[in-house]
């Protein structure tokens, strides 16, 4: 489960839509047609001047077949980040039951690391 510390990123949806559209070689007219809005409105949406409904937001997600990594990619900084996105992408493919197992495993590893750290501190003292 993702914790809320990841959460507080305001989505700059406009610029992201523009770059995703260009990545997929879609014209504004093509994309506007697929979303079901006017081309001029899409243009304003890309410039951040147009507010969308939940329905439209989800339609955009669906059209681009987006995952969270796609959106994080905007701020990507280096190989470490890439590895995290890849992990996230793979994690999303798992069934809920297996996702829970992965979470338990991570918890277990974190506790193990904590124990090792505590023991090291004791020894040093």
């Amino acid at each position, binding site marked *: *489960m*993702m*914790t*809320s510390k*990841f*959460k*507080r*990123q*305001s*989505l700059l*949806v*406009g610029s992201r839509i523009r770059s995703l559209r260009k990545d997929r070689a879609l014209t504004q007219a093509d994309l506007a047609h697929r979303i*079901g*809005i*006017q081309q001029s*409105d899409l243009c*304003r949406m890309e410039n*951040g*001047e*147009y*507010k*969308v*409904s*939940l*329905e*439209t*937001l*989800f339609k955009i*997600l*669906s059209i681009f077949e*987006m*995952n*969270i990594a796609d*959106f*994080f990619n905007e701020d990507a900084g280096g190989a470490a980040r890439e590895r995290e996105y890849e992990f996230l992408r793979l994690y*999303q493919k798992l069934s809920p039951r297996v996702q829970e197992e992965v979470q338990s495993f991570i918890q277990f590893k974190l506790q193990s690391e904590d124990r090792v750290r505590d023991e090291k501190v004791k020894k040093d003292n």
Partner: protein
Amino acid sequence: MAPELEARYSELTAEGTLQVRRGEFRLAADQFEAALLIARELGDQLLMDRAICNLSTARLSLGMIQEAEKGLREILLKSSDPNIIFIASSNLASALRKQGRLQKALLYAKRALRACESIDNFAWKATCHNLIANIYMNMSYLDDAMAEYRFALTLSQKGGLGTSYPVDYIKENLGYCSLLKKRYHQGIATILEALQISLANGNTRCLVECYQDLCFAYMQLKELKRAEEYGEKALAIAAERDYKDILKNCYYLLGEVNLLMENEERSDFYFDKLQELYPHLPVLKQFLRTFDVSNILNLKNPF
């Protein structure tokens, strides 16, 4: 026989109109359908047109957009009655607005406004300006929308409408428009006025929109407990009355509010509910948990 049928037609129409104002759209649609059958039996074109227009109003509110459009264009081609032209044009404008065809919607809304000029009905004129404002708001032309809402309120005052319909809707929309412009306290004050009016008028649809928008406003102000209370009120009514658009918005808002309160279990509950409505989009819940989309949303965009 004919006078009896005509009386029954008038009765059904009046009952249906009352149900629309109470937000009981399914009951209203039933009344208008029954009125249409009587009009057909009487073979009276004017009564048929009026019943089709009224039925369209109820269906629009039920989210039956395609059905709501049925017969309106034909009426506009043949009718010369300004009352009928007004209702047909404004309903067509609303139907197009709900499909995101905003430019066309604006054209029909302006046609309705022209039809209105010859009718001495301030409530209709105000409704028409409210509709134009809604279209501007959907287009994110917020200043134009606010000017239209204010003009609609001025007309309502001029016509002595007091706090009757559609003043509750106009104030509610104006308040929400202020929220979109980040004038939260101003917006809340206007929406609270609308809330009181809609309670007094028994206008459940407007009431539920007030609760939803107050939830959004307090969420943006980070007064989260209050936001949650209003969100839960909106959700309860939306579930009871089957207001699907409000239901989705409430799942999102309550998921977001609870996430901000770090109540992850409750947040998951609401986001899961929303996720269930979009099974083809499995990343939706995680997406909403990851990103704050509150600043890019217009909860009143129907498309």
